């Protein structure tokens, strides 16, 4: 199964790098859409089926925290997994994102295998355990 992915990051370069990382890691990628902040992402989600969202935390207009709050409040895309790809080091803020419904987070800098392992696990692929789980993620 190929997954539609939405990448939300204010950095065009980082969006490109995340996309390339997904492609190189062998992730079953369907359509890939991009947004430069949370508000843009919500607009895309209103009209498009997305299987997975990869979002930054620090963004102008609407940051990652505001984005996930709106997403869950408005019940847009139901339980679509949201994974934060972030430089955020504040444990309290990361825990808050998880409590708000994030499926996991990956700290930058990251290695492709870390993204692959986390996403495989979240998307329920059986090879997730074969790839290792040396990423920071918590389940609810």
């Amino acid at each position, binding site marked *: 199964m190929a997954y539609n992915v939405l990448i939300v990051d204010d*950095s*065009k*370069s*980082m969006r*490109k*790098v995340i996309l*390339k990382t997904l492609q190189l890691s062998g992730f079953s990628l369907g359509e890939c859409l991009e947004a430069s902040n949370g508000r843009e992402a919500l607009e895309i989600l209103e009209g498009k089926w997305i299987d997975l969202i990869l979002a930054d935390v*620090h963004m*102008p207009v609407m940051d990652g925290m505001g984005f996930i709050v709106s997403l869950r409040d408005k019940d847009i895309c139901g339980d679509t997994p949201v994974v934060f790809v*972030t*430089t*955020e*080091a*504040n444990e309290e*803020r990361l825990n808050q994102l998880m409590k708000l419904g994030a499926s996991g987070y990956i*700290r*930058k*800098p*990251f*290695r492709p295998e870390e993204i692959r392992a986390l996403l495989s696990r979240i998307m329920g692929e059986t090879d997730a355990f074969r790839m290792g789980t040396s990423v920071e993620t918590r389940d609810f």
Partner: protein
Amino acid sequence: MLLEWEQVLKHVISDVLETMFFSMVDFGECGPEDQCFDYGSEIHLLSHAGCTAISLRVSEEFARMITANFLGVEENQVNDDDMKDSLKELANMIGGGYHARVKEAGWRLGIPEVWKIGPESMDSTQRDAELDFAFLGEPAGSATVNYLPA
């Protein structure tokens, strides 16, 4: 002897450059004290007591090379906006890594800034305590950490 901030910064810069920009740098005296670089970037770690500014200055050659590596393109395909965007991300990741290692409670990361250092632009980076780094023996850049009380 390296100061604490230098040790942390050295570790963080190496980690970020190796992991995401596929580049290894050497630290130490790399050139003349008044070495000129082409791009500056800075990120602030903010707290109620003040802010810690992490500043970087890099040569255009180095900025172009790491940007090409970061984006997975040829160096001749890299433009000025790509370099600025990549240097912002570099500052962002270095700031996040520094924060993670010093583990100061109550800090939060600011938004990174980047600028081109030209004759008419102000390069406000403090130059008396810098961590110089080189790529393949050539001066590539320098970094510094300054604490600015509120």
